[in-house]
């Protein structure tokens, strides 16, 4: 599967934009602002499960930041490349499979998602926020990036304009970021909302990043993330395979 050229192109373009203000703000400053606003503002007054709010918040912001960056870059890049710059058409006209196109995009999305988490991870280690950086933590983080990058491919392939991508982000991605246990435990929500929220993938990433312990509950959450990832990847491959103008 010749996915590497697609990955290489996406990463080369990413490196060109890395130091642009827009990227720095969205990838690094926004999560830091959340951390300052909520962590410092509420952190001193609020305790969750006997621990500090900052320790609770940081894994949630890592999950949110990786989700937003993995999704947004893939969905926007694909929509713009397909509808405006026609660069996606170069992939379709090349002798590469739909799976290679999807995997190249998703792999680049994973890198972007992980990079945006990096600054928060480093900060967490510096301030001693009790992050448990073990294999399950890293696996959950990578899976989170993967499934939202795959979702980015699906949305990027279905969007009829740049607005569609933004709308999906406004009506699905951002609400999920706020209600999936990023800023407060889902147990504080009404039970009906708890059921809905427990079906969302970010809820399971949040749980895994806060409790990276190989127990049954963690395995169940990991299973949910894997299932979402598999469905997202398959859907993305079908959409790319059936692409027709």
């Amino acid at each position, binding site marked *: 599967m*010749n996915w*590497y*050229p*697609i990955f*290489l*192109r996406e990463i*080369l*373009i990413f490196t*060109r*934009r890395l130091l642009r203000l827009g990227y720095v703000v969205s990838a690094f400053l926004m999560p830091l602002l959340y951390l300052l606003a909520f962590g410092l503002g509420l952190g001193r007054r609020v305790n969750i499960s006997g621990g500090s709010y900052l320790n609770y918040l940081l894994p949630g912001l890592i999950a949110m930041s990786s989700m937003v960056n993995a999704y947004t870059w893939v969905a926007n890049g694909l929509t713009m490349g397909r509808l405006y*710059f*026609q*660069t996606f*058409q*170069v*992939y*379709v*006209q*090349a*002798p*590469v*499979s739909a799976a290679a196109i999807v995997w190249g995009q998703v792999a680049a999305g994973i890198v972007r998602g992980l990079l945006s988490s990096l600054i928060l991870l480093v900060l967490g280690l510096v301030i001693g926020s009790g992050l448990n950086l073990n294999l399950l933590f890293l696996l959950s983080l990578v899976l989170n990036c993967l499934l939202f990058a795959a979702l980015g491919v699906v949305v990027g392939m279905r969007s009829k304009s740049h607005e569609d991508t933004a709308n999906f982000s406004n009506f699905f991605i951002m609400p999920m970021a706020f209600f999936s246990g990023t800023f407060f435990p889902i147990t504080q929500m009404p039970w009906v909302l708890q059921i809905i929220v427990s079906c969302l993938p970010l809820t399971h990433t949040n749980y895994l990043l806060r409790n990276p312990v190989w127990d049954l509950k963690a395995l169940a959450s990991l299973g949910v993330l894997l299932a979402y990832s598999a469905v997202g990847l398959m859907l993305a491959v079908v959409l790319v395979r059936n*692409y*027709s*103008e």
Partner: protein
Amino acid sequence: MPHGEICRAKVLIYSRYGRLLDNQADSPQTMIAIEHLSKRYQEIVALDDLTLQISAGEIFGLLGPNGAGKTTLIKILTGLARPTRGSAKIAGLDVVRQPLEVKKLIGVSPQEINLDKELTAYENLLIYGKLHQVPDLQNRIQSLLETGDLTERAHNRVREFSGGMQRRLLMLRAIMSRPRVLFLDEPTVGLDPQVRHQLWDLITQFKADGITVLLTTHYIEEAEILCDRVGILNRGHLIALDTPQDLKARAGGYTVESLKNGRRHYELVQDREEAQRRALADPQGVIVRRVNLEDVFLKLTGESLAGKREA
């Protein structure tokens, strides 16, 4: 019948417009074979029952106004669009059923310049070469950059290039994988005459290298100079197909162009004396010139290639 004669065998059929279509019989040298190809976008018919064969090593030009179906045909042949009906084969491979095999044989230079403008010329060629798994890639890139006189700009971002340089790079990228068939969709659109001539030289070189070229163009001169045969598309229909010389000869040798009531009128006449007689008879003065493919299109459809209805 000897092989050479089979290749030259031609089937003459009448189109729905009642004009002669010169349709080459499917032969061992047929590189592109299109059979009853149609493409609909809901109510819009982009291509309607198109049948056409293009021989190996030929430069084939598709002429027609915007919306005639030229780009749609290229999209179907290169795997970007699926036909509603009919079939298309490249080197005997079905473009719908064997897309990956077909894509190994083709190169595409699209109407839109779809280079990555944030990347350098070298990076654009590198990624395309890796996508097509081009052997000995570094040498191939160097050789292409030399061909396009772009070696010194290899590591400059494409967004800093002029329109002509971008077009040149686009065309070089298209031949990166040494394709057997090259699709050039409006390859010289918006370029000044000097750059256009440079690209024509490049296209002529492709033919010398044995590449089959299918090009679409709005420029009559381009089609007349470059193409071995020309097909004229109008509203999804192939309304004429022959060499540029034969199409013009069939339409008439000379065009008498006059201005009546503020509108241009065109008359196509067979011989020079007749054209001169008409010129002398018109008190307002007329232009007499040799017939070009624009006149052929006008005669067939009553419209100019720019889409304006003419008298």
